């Protein structure tokens, strides 16, 4: 409230909201996604927000690293049959846009109904203690089965629902690119051993290695020294994208 602001910042619900905002502002189509252009503007906005303590900052940063990753993938020649690295982001944006439009429709309905119609609290009537509803004993059996074997009533969710969970490994490579770049910006040089020893899990180590290789190929970092004393250093004049 007492934030000394000379300009008004728009409030973004999240990284997808911000991306859609940028796409609209640049009069682009969701299908295009010129990642390089968006990344630059995206980072500029996030940087602005960082000063005023943005909620969900980590999610905004995660998206930044994902954009960074896509950008780096786009610079490489794509093998035949290989997916466009933008596909996943594109479908996320499309899904989100769809629900946002549905939300607008709901809002319109809410203005006409929920906001204008009121319900009444329950009338005070003869007080009595809560009573337990009678239940069929079969409910016990099905509850018991549900515990041991997985319920029959609950149908498994479509695979699509797990899309995000399953692709998190991809995201984590990108986040490693981002994390590594940031650490190097602060420290300039890091012993390679230390880099891997700090990783909590095997998946992290793999992701970290892939991130390192990615940065090496993009000529962002270089390796100095040899053997056990190998060090990772920021390439001279290199900016972490």
């Amino acid at each position, binding site marked *: 409230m007492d934030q000394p602001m000379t300009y008004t910042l728009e409030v973004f619900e999240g990284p997808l909201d911000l991306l859609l905002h940028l796409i609209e502002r640049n009069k682009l189509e969701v299908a295009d996604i010129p990642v390089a252009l968006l990344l630059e503007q995206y980072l500029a906005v996030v940087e602005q927000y960082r000063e005023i303590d943005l909620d969900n900052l980590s999610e905004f940063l995660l998206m930044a690293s994902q954009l960074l990753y896509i950008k780096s993938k786009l610079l490489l020649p794509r093998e035949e049959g290989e997916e466009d690295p933008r596909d996943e982001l594109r479908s*996320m944006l499309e899904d989100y846009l*769809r*629900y946002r439009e549905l*939300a607008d429709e*709901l*809002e319109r309905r809410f203005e006409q109904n929920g906001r204008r119609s009121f*319900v009444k*609290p329950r*009338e005070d009537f003869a007080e009595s203690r809560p009573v337990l509803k009678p239940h069929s004993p079969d409910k016990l059996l099905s509850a018991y089965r549900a515990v041991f074997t997985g319920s029959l009533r*609950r149908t498994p969710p479509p695979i699509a629902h797990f899309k995000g969970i399953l692709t998190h490994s991809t995201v984590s490579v990108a986040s490693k690119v981002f994390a590594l770049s940031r650490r190097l910006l602060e420290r300039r040089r890091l012993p390679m051993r230390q880099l891997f020893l700090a990783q909590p899990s095997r998946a992290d180590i793999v992701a970290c290695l892939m991130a390192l290789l990615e940065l090496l190929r993009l000529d962002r970092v270089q390796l100095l020294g040899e053997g056990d004393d190998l060090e990772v250093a920021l390439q001279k004049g290199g900016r972490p994208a």
Partner: protein
Amino acid sequence: MTQPDSPGAQWQALLQDAGRGHPPQARFEAAVEAILFAAGEPVELAVLASALEMEQTLCKTLLDRMLFGYNQREGGIVMRRLDDSYQLCSNPAQAACVRAVLDRKREVSLSPAALEVLAITAYNQPVTRAFLEQVRGVDSSGVVASLLEKELLEERGRLDAPGRPMQFGTTAAFLRCFGLSSLEELPPVDERGALIAQLEFQET
């Protein structure tokens, strides 16, 4: 009527009785109005039928007949059907003067985030927090908590997946707030070509 005092025979006579406003239909409507008024919240058809000691199919026929007439009188109270439940609410046409009297706290307001979560849930229920987060790209647990408190969302048991996450669905209050009698009345959406369907819906 051989047993004029038996509720069953009495109500049964209503079906034959085509004329509205005759004593039996009026008596039925008075009873339903009293029940719905006192309850405040939505009351299920099954509960109404059992309280009135009548068959559900008959009860439903009479309720739907009542629904139509009740709302046609354009009074201060309207009757709504929400799935298998019925509820009375104040007439939206009177919103201005009701607001002038009502405590501000009773007014529900919904943020864009809340509307997004409701839209995603309505079309995919039951959904987990992780699913909402996946679609929106941000943590949504605060929004979910506030929608649970507003009784627009409810818990729907745990998903059979690692961590057994809680699943959420929309409530009868959700239907009422958005002027729907059932989820089938939601604007139609296809899988991918969704937006087109949506636009067509708005145009008509």
